[in-house]
């Protein structure tokens, strides 16, 4: 595939069965006339044959399957009826090999690999927040709604989330609102609001969390500052590469803003 034809992605889509009949027919006509596309199609076929016949078919071990079955059983809530409103216990996997180094008896392993921690806490979530922030900076990840007007951004979330996130524009305080989008954190869809400080992007993630209010706590991760707090029934996470003091002032302004 050293030579190019502008139709390459269409040839590929045809090869993958992604074109409708009309598109496929017009592409077939093009291929008749284009030796590059004919050879592209052939190469795609040859690669698929090789990949499907030669690449190892990795399958889960029965040991893994058994561990997962045990974990599911261990994490299942008690059988009593009447408490069905409660969410299942939030459980996290203790890193398997770290646990294994502590635990000699394999029989014990299933019970100690589960660790119940409070909602919205823990390094895993902070890690997810940073990962989402980085992902949002990648080209090709378009925001859902681009607007500096909170009256445009807020209604955009209607019907996309099962809660109405507060949207505040802090432009007059030096943190203009840029856009809103959906993200996925803590196992649920969340509202993500993008702000800027000078040229630095700031992402604020928020979702309902009915724990008690919690003061902002600051952590650093991969060169990013992450601040988490809980207020008025919302869990809030903000992440950026701005100075920590600036991000703290963002949090104060957000909390103070109506």
């Amino acid at each position: 595939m050293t030579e190019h034809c502008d139709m390459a992605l269409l040839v590929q889509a045809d090869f993958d069965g992604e074109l409708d009949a009309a598109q496929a027919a017009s592409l077939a006509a093009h291929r008749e006339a284009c030796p590059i596309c004919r050879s592209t199609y052939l190469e795609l076929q040859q690669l698929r044959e090789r990949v499907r016949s030669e690449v190892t078919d990795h399958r889960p071990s029965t040991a893994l399957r058994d561990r997962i079955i045990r974990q599911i059983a261990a994490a299942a809530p008690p059988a009593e009826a009447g408490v069905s409103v409660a969410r299942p216990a939030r459980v996290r996997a203790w890193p398997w090999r770290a646990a294994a180094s502590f635990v000699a008896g394999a029989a014990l392993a299933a019970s100690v690999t589960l660790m119940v921690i409070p909602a919205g806490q823990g390094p895993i979530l902070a890690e997810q927040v940073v990962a989402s922030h980085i992902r949002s900076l990648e080209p090709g990840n378009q925001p859902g709604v681009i607007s500096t007007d909170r009256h445009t951004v807020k209604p955009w979330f209607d019907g996309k989330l099962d809660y109405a996130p507060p949207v505040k524009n802090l432009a007059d305080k030096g943190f203009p609102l840029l856009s809103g989008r959906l993200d996925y954190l803590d196992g649920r869809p969340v509202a993500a609001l993008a702000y800027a400080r000078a040229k630095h992007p700031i992402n604020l993630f928020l979702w309902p969390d009915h724990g008690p209010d919690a003061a902002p706590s600051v952590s650093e991760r991969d060169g990013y500052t992450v601040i988490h707090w809980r207020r008025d029934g919302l869990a809030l996470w903000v992440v950026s590469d701005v100075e920590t003091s600036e991000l703290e002032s963002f949090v104060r302004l957000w909390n103070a803003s109506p």
Partner: protein
Amino acid sequence: MLDFLFAERRAAKIGMASPQPMASFEAIALPHLGAAYNLARWLMRNADDAEDVVQEAMLRALTYFDGFRGTNFHGWLLQIVRNTAYSSLRLNRGVRIVSLDAAPGGTDETEAAIPELPDPGDDPETALLHERDRQLLDRLLERLPVELREVVVLRELQELSYKEIAQITEAPIGTVMSRLWRGRRLLTAAAGASSAAEKTA
């Protein structure tokens, strides 16, 4: 980016309102374990890390299962597996996953990213052994940048549609297409170079 989930959630709300019972999680999830592990194995590139990722992803899925109202459990689970794997890659290795979307035409930058060919070894005999290794494509696939590797795995090995891959990787379909194209080009070029080397050996 997750519109498909919400569309399904909205649709499901009209119909069944009650969450699916926890007891059924095992029955629903286990049939997807193979695909979940396969994806994790190719993302993490070793069995131990892949098992860690699948275990954690299954627990996350279990934890949030009562919030899942969609019909595409397979895509939902693979998305969790992928997110878990990416977190693990960043957490454990300090790997910064660099986006490769800057060169959609696949020109110089892509060529520069061609995975290194297997080390031919110290002498011609060793080289021959390496080149004839049936695991050649495994190694080439493992050397693809992760964002290209995952789309190739999901398309060629798991035979998912562009739409499904876009959902799992949280990327637009156009991005899926260009990543798939570049992943395949790199594999074809690298495998072709190896075969050519074998013939002349």
